[in-house]
């Protein structure tokens, strides 16, 4: 049996296998989260196993399922028709069951799901003006900005301007339809397949269908994948350093 000492040396020999850095400090917020949860369990509001099941489910979801739905719809017209007709049933075809993790879904994800198809003249974007309803089984957790009052309040009033703030500038002839999610309905956008992807496999196509494309604040592009590095662009007009901040630096 390998000793701990030898084990550590084996790791040091290969820096790529070193453990990722961790926060080795207890925060008041971490303590508060544990305290609230433990008291709720002790009072019988829910059980530790119920909490574990939700945690396990929440850590397993992400936008990959949505990307697969879109890629399959792009390559299989019959599947696309089924997806538009009954999205929850079509999800089961790719192994995604909206009834997880309880058998009846989660309280935050009602099993009413509709896919909105973009056309050359119609672009969809989703929001939840009331709170933060989001198709979590297919897209994972909503980004912070989706939950913000800024996005929720302004998108329904000024969709074209808000989309432009995301870098998506649509020509005036394209109608923008904002679909407001609610406690009973979840939506996802089926964007148009971009040119330059002819002959691609379903797997290749799924890579360019990012989360934001399925919310509707971005369009898929053949040169952009979800795991692409974040672009870093130099400032066009960098702030001139002054004697004051030179001294401070």
């Amino acid at each position, binding site marked *: 049996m390998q000793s701990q000492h030898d084990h550590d040396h084996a790791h040091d020999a290969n820096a790529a296998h070193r453990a*990722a*850095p*961790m*926060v*080795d*400090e*207890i*925060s*008041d*917020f*971490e*303590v*508060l*989260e*544990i*305290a*609230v*949860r*433990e*008291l*709720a369990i002790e*009072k*019988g*509001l*829910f*059980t530790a196993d*119920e*909490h*574990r099941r*939700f*945690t396990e489910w*929440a*850590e397993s979801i992400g936008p990959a399922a949505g990307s697969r739905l879109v890629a399959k719809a792009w390559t299989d017209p019959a599947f696309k028709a089924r997806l538009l007709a009954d999205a929850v049933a079509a999800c089961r075809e790719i192994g995604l069951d909206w009834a997880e993790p*309880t058998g009846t879904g*989660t*309280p*935050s994800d009602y099993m009413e799901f509709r896919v909105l198809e973009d056309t050359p003249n119609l672009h969809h974007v989703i929001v939840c003006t*009331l*709170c*933060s309803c989001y198709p979590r089984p297919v897209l994972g*957790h909503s980004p*912070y900005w989706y*939950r913000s*009052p800024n996005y929720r309040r302004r998108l329904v009033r000024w969709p074209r301007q808000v989309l432009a703030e995301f870098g998506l500038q649509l020509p005036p002839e394209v109608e923008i339809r904002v679909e407001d999610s609610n*406690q009973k309905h979840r939506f996802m956008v089926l964007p148009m397949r971009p040119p330059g992807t002819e002959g691609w496999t379903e797997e290749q196509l799924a890579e360019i269908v990012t989360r934001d494309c399925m919310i509707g604040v971005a369009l898929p592009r053949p040169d952009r994948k979800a795991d692409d590095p974040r672009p870093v662009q130099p400032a066009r007009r960098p702030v001139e350093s002054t004697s004051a901040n030179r001294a401070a630096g």
Partner: protein
Amino acid sequence: MSAQHRPSSAAPTASQGPKAPIRLLEDIRRAGKTWAELAPRWGVSEPDPPWKTSLHATCECLSAAAVLPVLERRRAEDELGETLYCGTPAPEQQLLALAHTMLTRGLLSEEELARRIKEVRTRLVAS
């Protein structure tokens, strides 16, 4: 899930009103280190604190038990996030809003929460 629960008899300072500051949570808000502060200090690039998923699960369980429905919780998060806990980053803000709402609804008392926080901290420090 069981919806059986009894509101705590001990009234927290939150009884002054649902939007009044609660001393216990104010102390955490002021002195607590957010993930945005801690992570870069320890060279961690993970965008979310490790307890975030657990917090979401607690919210789901409370909703499934009909103790704190989703819509009511989100409304409270909005109201408190724009007032008392404005300026606190998202996951910490959501946690403070949840604790605040549970206190003002009598699901927890400030005394028992303070006591448990002390116990949890002692346990974590010792481990």
